[in-house]
């Protein structure tokens, strides 16, 4: 039996059609003019124990609503949802014991308490025995050096430190499934990398099922084997992340700012690239922004690092940026039939 089974899941909200202005607001009081918003519209998928799923989609796609149904906050309008064999909404307390949740940047720790005290309270709430607790804290200390934060009040932690603590907390009771909603948003690269290592480690060593919603396609690429793309309440794609990788994973745009830039720079760059990497190099060059040269690279054909080092050694580079393809672009490409 799959750990999570979702069949024809729907969540509809009745939203009042609001009129404009003060008079409109007054008329709205007596209005029965509702619009049905299909936040989740006929979603079906199964998730096996131990899977790590990237659940992605643009803003307002219905991700949060699905997660809220899986965690038992919202009751589905229709359709079936079973987590570990039970409908979450009807069994909230029992389900909470087997779930861990990290919801965006809102901490679930006790704001005024030192970190370690928060963990001790959670130990009691989830009835975690001393040995499991010590092992868990030891593991996190090893992975991210958690011990040095023990005495600090949660309110004094940086965003990155707090997210690490929240993730530690969400795994404390060895849940069967952990929901991570935007765990890396707003974090700098080194903390992001740490976070990914930790998540991967826990998924592998404990076989914890992880459902990751994120805007950062890098997270999905680094962590997940399966990806579910949702838009306008419907599943657009459900399958191997490698397939989707072709749309976002392989492409990076290297933006470089070269000293004394002019028309000839662009030509010289293109020419030397062909000389160095061959004609079928998957590299295209254009000037999109003033003074910035965009080098879009298909990493399946030419590694980004090679291009970067080539440019750095051969041109007087002033500044460099690497940009990933955006979520909206990916969804658009899926609509355009890129995966079918």
């Amino acid at each position, binding site marked *: 039996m799959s750990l999570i089974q979702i069949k024809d899941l729907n969540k509809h909200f009745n939203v009042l059609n609001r009129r404009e202005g003060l008079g409109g607001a007054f008329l709205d009081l007596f209005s029965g003019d509702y619009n049905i918003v299909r936040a989740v519209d006929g979603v079906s998928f199964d998730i096996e124990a131990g899977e790590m799923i990237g659940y992605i989609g643009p803003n307002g796609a219905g991700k949060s609503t699905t997660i809220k149904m899986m965690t038992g906050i919202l009751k589905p309008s229709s359709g079936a949802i079973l987590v570990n064999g039970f409908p979450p909404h009807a069994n909230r307390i029992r389900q909470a014991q087997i779930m861990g949740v990290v919801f965006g940047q809102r901490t679930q720790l006790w704001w005024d308490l030192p970190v370690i005290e928060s963990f001790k*309270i959670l130990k009691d709430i989830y009835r975690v025995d001393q040995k499991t607790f010590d092992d868990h804290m030891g593991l996190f200390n090893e992975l991210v050096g958690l011990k040095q934060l023990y005495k600090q009040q949660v309110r004094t932690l940086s965003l990155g430190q707090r997210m690490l603590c929240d993730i530690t907390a969400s795994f404390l009771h060895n849940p069967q499934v952990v929901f991570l909603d935007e765990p890396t948003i707003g974090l700098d690269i080194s903390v992001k990398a740490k976070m990914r290592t930790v998540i991967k480690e826990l998924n592998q060593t404990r076989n914890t099922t992880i459902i990751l919603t994120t805007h950062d396609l890098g997270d999905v690429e680094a962590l997940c084997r399966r990806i579910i793309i949702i838009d306008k309440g419907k599943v657009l794609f459900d399958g191997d992340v490698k397939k989707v990788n072709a749309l976002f994973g392989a492409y990076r745009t290297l933006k470089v700012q070269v000293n004394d830039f002019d028309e000839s720079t662009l030509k010289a760059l293109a020419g030397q690239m062909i000389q160095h990497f061959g004609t079928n190099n998957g590299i295209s060059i254009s000037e999109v922004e003033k003074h910035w040269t965009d080098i879009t690279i298909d990493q399946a054909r030419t590694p980004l690092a090679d291009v970067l080092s080539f440019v750095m050694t051969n041109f007087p580079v002033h500044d460099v940026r690497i940009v990933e393809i955006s979520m909206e672009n990916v969804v658009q490409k899926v609509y355009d039939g890129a995966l079918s």
Partner: protein
Amino acid sequence: MHRITRYLRLYFLIEAQYIKARMQYRADFIISSIGMFFSSLATLGIFWILFGSITELAGWNFMEMVFIYAFYMIAISPMQIIFDHFWQLRYHVTEGTFLKYYFRPLNMMFYYISEMFDLKGLTQLAAGIVLLVYASIQLNIQWTIARVMLLLASLFSASLVQIAVVVSASCAAFWVMNSWPVLSLAWKLREFSPYPMSIFDGAFRVLFTYVIPIGFVAFYPSQIFLRPEQVSPLAYASPLVGIGLFALAYRIWTLGVNSYTGTGS
């Protein structure tokens, strides 16, 4: 039973930590406690001025009023100390921070209230107890063990009335965008509770007795101890009122919690 001891244990664990953390802000604690103490006494000052020109208020003398007020101070303390977090429910609901209360394997109301413990309310409780003892000595009230038990039961149910009123009013936040008017009404009504209901004119008396029964926070239950010989049957209804109202408030809370959809993330 096992469940109750588990929750009590958790409650003490969380509150001990919370108090320890709060104690680091000692000035904050001392100043707010002093403030609490004087604002409690302010109403007594009003009585004192009032009784400078009259000898009885609707048939109740000064010391009887002090007794009712002391009863009131004790009865509202559990709301103040244990359920204080309810005043902030509307912020959690509108900002989406309320979501986290769904994620623990605990009763949600328990988890919600456990996050705050209002220390300064203890000053009010202590002042109320001192005042009640003082007034009952002055009034020469005869205490037997049975009557002390009755007093404790009455205080318990009276505090449930106060808790139920605030909990229900706070829960308006689940359905109303700006629930402050509802909450501030609950706050203002509280100030009417230490007065004899007989001073209010018909409509208000009915309102305070049957609709938003703040009369049961202090006045009706106090009568049992002040004038046992002429108690209105309503006074003996007060334990039922307390338990019934709290059950109703809990139901409203459950409905609210189940209808909450959160904010976008």
